[in-house]
């Protein structure tokens, strides 16, 4: 069955450092992979989407890589700030030729950035 794994342990880093979060998946070939941020008691907030034929995507301090051979995505936050503290969710996007689309989610990695 399809499986998505993210670092289960919380990641704590010092302000200013780069956070790197990992998303691994098996038994799946997603058309896209998305990263979201979720704060406690809130809905996920979309950050970045990367297509299966893209290796890397950047947006401001965020960078995502996508390796379909390794079945892995890495999510980087550079120059991290305490406000970046949240849970980060990886989601595989099953868009296909029809009108069907759904996201399959990882459990998320909790990131804490210490001042």
């Amino acid at each position, binding site marked *: 069955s399809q499986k998505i794994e993210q670092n289960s342990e919380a990641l704590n880093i010092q302000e200013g450092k780069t956070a790197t979060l990992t998303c691994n998946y098996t038994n799946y070939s997603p*058309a*896209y992979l*998305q990263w*979201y941020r979720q704060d406690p*008691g*809130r*809905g*996920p*907030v*979309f*950050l*970045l*989407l990367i*297509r299966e034929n893209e290796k890397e995507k950047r947006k401001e301090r965020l960078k995502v890589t996508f390796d379909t051979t390794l079945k892995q995505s890495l999510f980087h936050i550079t120059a991290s700030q305490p406000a970046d503290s949240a849970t980060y*969710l990886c*989601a595989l996007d099953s*868009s296909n030729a*029809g*009108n*069907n*689309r*759904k*996201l*399959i*989610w*990882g*459990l*998320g990695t909790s990131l804490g950035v210490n001042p």
Partner: protein
Amino acid sequence: EPEVTQTPSHQVTQMGQEVILRCVPISNHLYFYWYRQILGQKVEFLVSFYNNEISEKSEIFDDQFSVERPDGSNFTLKIRSTKLEDSAMYFCASSEALRDYGYTFGSGTRLTVV
């Protein structure tokens, strides 16, 4: 920044009662979704909706669940006879297009079945 609005933010209901969760998606979005998240667990897909009909639904979305877009702006999820295990955060989401776009999620409705 346009938002997806969900009401109520918290709903407590007796087991066996019907609940309706309401959502107002972003106005120019065409695709609508319901997801749920049981406390401490992964976000789970329930149903997708396009062109006034269900595109896809998960195994969770059984006969007790239904969705409607009654008036062109609201998007509702109805649970006919709630069970204890339906207790979760329910998120509505919308997207502008089928591909190449992320989803915009609402803040969720916390449903507690007692």
